[in-house]
């Protein structure tokens, strides 16, 4: 089984130095792209590879890039930003790539920047990733010293600056337009789309924001080609994926695996099965803002298309497990507390609705719920759903709620009927 993104990452995640990275083929993709391929050819290659964004939405990366204006007369500087905010609860995959092999990310960022003609690039890193920050700072210095960054890289005429920006903590920073506001030193509020960042992003200039894992795929696609990349997958969605499992399993962790392994394989084989005495009740397949899947979905392949067909989203691909001894109402309450706290407050349904949902869930959990509360929860899943709020935070928050109301409705009703939590 090939594990291109993680095979060189050490178990203790001590980052590869520049020399170590070069020894295992590092920066060959930069050489190949800058010296042998045109930017258009790199875009075409990535489009053909069918790489889909690993940040959650799963948009085709090459297609996203193709909206960036190209040619001599376009606004400059253009920007590339690596989204290393990773604050989606239950998600810990980018941390591995950031800590274990920062040069791989930098190489991917150079390839992406070349493809879209970016002049300046940023790594937007969350505050908590201290070890990653040290590794990235060092790796950027090494890359400058070796001539992979700076003016006229490898004599190609292409130049690129790179900087690290560390955020000061807010989930909204991960939303790509809010991230750009944060980089400009503003509150991390989202921007209206259109205009899309590809056309008008950082400081009003064309900008691409890509997830860390997306960017780390690029050197391998350039080196080995689109057909190889598609061949890594078991299903129609290309590549490998870093999957994770947390919750009451024997071996929680993250693993790079072929796209399309099933939920059952992840839980039973890779995570070693449930802890003794616990049973699988459901899972959020890709972080806090994805819909629950349950036992009947265990054999669903974990790829964008199949998980969507099962009624959820791949999201970040890091799964959170709900076991039979954990209260689903308490579980969802914890999630809604997070979303209510992290709402930026810009639009009314989200600002007012999420705290309401949180309070209703708390009272149900305490055995103080009333039968009408179920209606209140139901209508919020519609009013805070897609199209009714300014950004995707609130619709994302509703995904675990609406699916919990579908699959675990009896558990909610039992709390209300019995005036107590059956799990306490």
């Amino acid at each position: 089984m090939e594990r291109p993104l993680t095979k060189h990452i050490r178990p203790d995640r001590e980052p590869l130095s520049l020399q170590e990275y070069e020894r295992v083929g590092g920066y060959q993709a930069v050489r190949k792209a800058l010296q042998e391929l045109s930017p258009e050819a790199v875009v075409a290659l990535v489009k053909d590879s069918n790489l889909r964004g690993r940040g959650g939405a799963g948009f085709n990366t090459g297609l996203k890039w193709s909206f960036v204006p190209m040619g001599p007369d376009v606004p400059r500087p253009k920007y590339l930003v690596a989204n290393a905010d990773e604050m989606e609860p239950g998600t810990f995959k980018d941390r591995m790539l950031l800590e274990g092999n920062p040069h791989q990310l930098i190489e991917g960022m150079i390839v992406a920047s070349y493809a879209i003609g970016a002049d300046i690039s940023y790594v937007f890193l969350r505050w908590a990733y201290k070890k990653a920050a040290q590794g990235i700072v060092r790796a950027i210095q090494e890359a400058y010293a070796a001539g992979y960054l700076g003016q006229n890289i490898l004599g190609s005429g292409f130049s690129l600056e790179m900087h690290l920006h560390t955020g000061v903590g807010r989930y909204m920073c991960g939303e790509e337009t809010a991230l750009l506001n944060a980089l400009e030193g503003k509150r991390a509020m989202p921007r209206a789309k259109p205009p899309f960042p590809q056309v008008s992003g950082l400081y009003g200039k064309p900008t691409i924001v890509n997830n860390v894992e997306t960017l780390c795929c690029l050197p391998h696609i350039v080196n080995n080609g689109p057909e190889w990349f598609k061949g890594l997958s078991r299903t129609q969605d290309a590549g490998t994926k870093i999957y994770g499992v947390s919750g009451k399993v024997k071996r929680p962790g993250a693993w790079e695996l072929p796209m399309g392994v099933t939920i059952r394989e992840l839980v039973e084989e890779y995570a070693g099965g449930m802890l003794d005495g616990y049973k699988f009740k459901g899972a959020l397949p890709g972080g806090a803002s994805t819909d629950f899947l349950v036992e009947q979905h265990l054999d669903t392949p974990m790829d964008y298309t199949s998980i969507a067909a099962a009624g959820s989203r791949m999201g970040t691909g890091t799964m959170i497990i709900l076991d039979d001894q954990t209260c689903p109402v308490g579980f969802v309450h914890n999630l809604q507390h997070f979303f209510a706290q992290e709402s930026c407050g810009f639009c009314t349904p989200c600002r007012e609705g999420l705290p309401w949902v949180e309070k209703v869930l708390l009272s149900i959990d305490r055995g103080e719920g009333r039968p009408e509360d179920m209606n209140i929860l139901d209508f919020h899943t519609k009013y805070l759903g897609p199209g009714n709020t300014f950004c995707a935070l609130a619709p994302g928050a509703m995904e675990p709620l609406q699916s919990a109301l579908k699959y675990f409705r009896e558990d909610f009703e039992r709390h209300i009927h019995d005036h107590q939590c059956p799990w306490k």
Partner: protein
Amino acid sequence: MNNNKTEEQMLTTEEIAQIEHEISLVPQKKAACIEALKVVQQHRGWVSDESLKDTATMLGMSAEELDSVATFYNLIFRQPVGRHVILLCDSISCWVMGYEQIRDHLMQKLQIKYGETTPDGRFTLLPNVCLGTCDRAPALMIDDHLYQNVTIEELDGILHHHR
């Protein structure tokens, strides 16, 4: 508000130099404001009204505008904090793995609630969103140190590292 600042309240030459350096790296002064707040916090542990005003002046912003940014983010402290800040993950995987026991133990041992500082000024306790290490839950950070798979038995030892 009193405009006669004590020397202690004024930004030091070192802080000013670091903020000016941050300003030199960005296309417009304001864009350095988060970095500038970080500089102040690094030196003082938190950002007081006085520091905020002086920093705003350097950035060509009003104090209110800078405060609107400072208060938006979870990790810029606008109140004094202890010598060490404990950030306890209260998100979903840590909840499933029983972080509430860790919370209760910390509160009992330190005799403080969330947002409070121990009388000796040693620890401030804050809840924090997912720390990105959910496979090793429950997790907490003290200053720059990450602790994973935390158990109540280990807590005393962990606290002991931070005098």
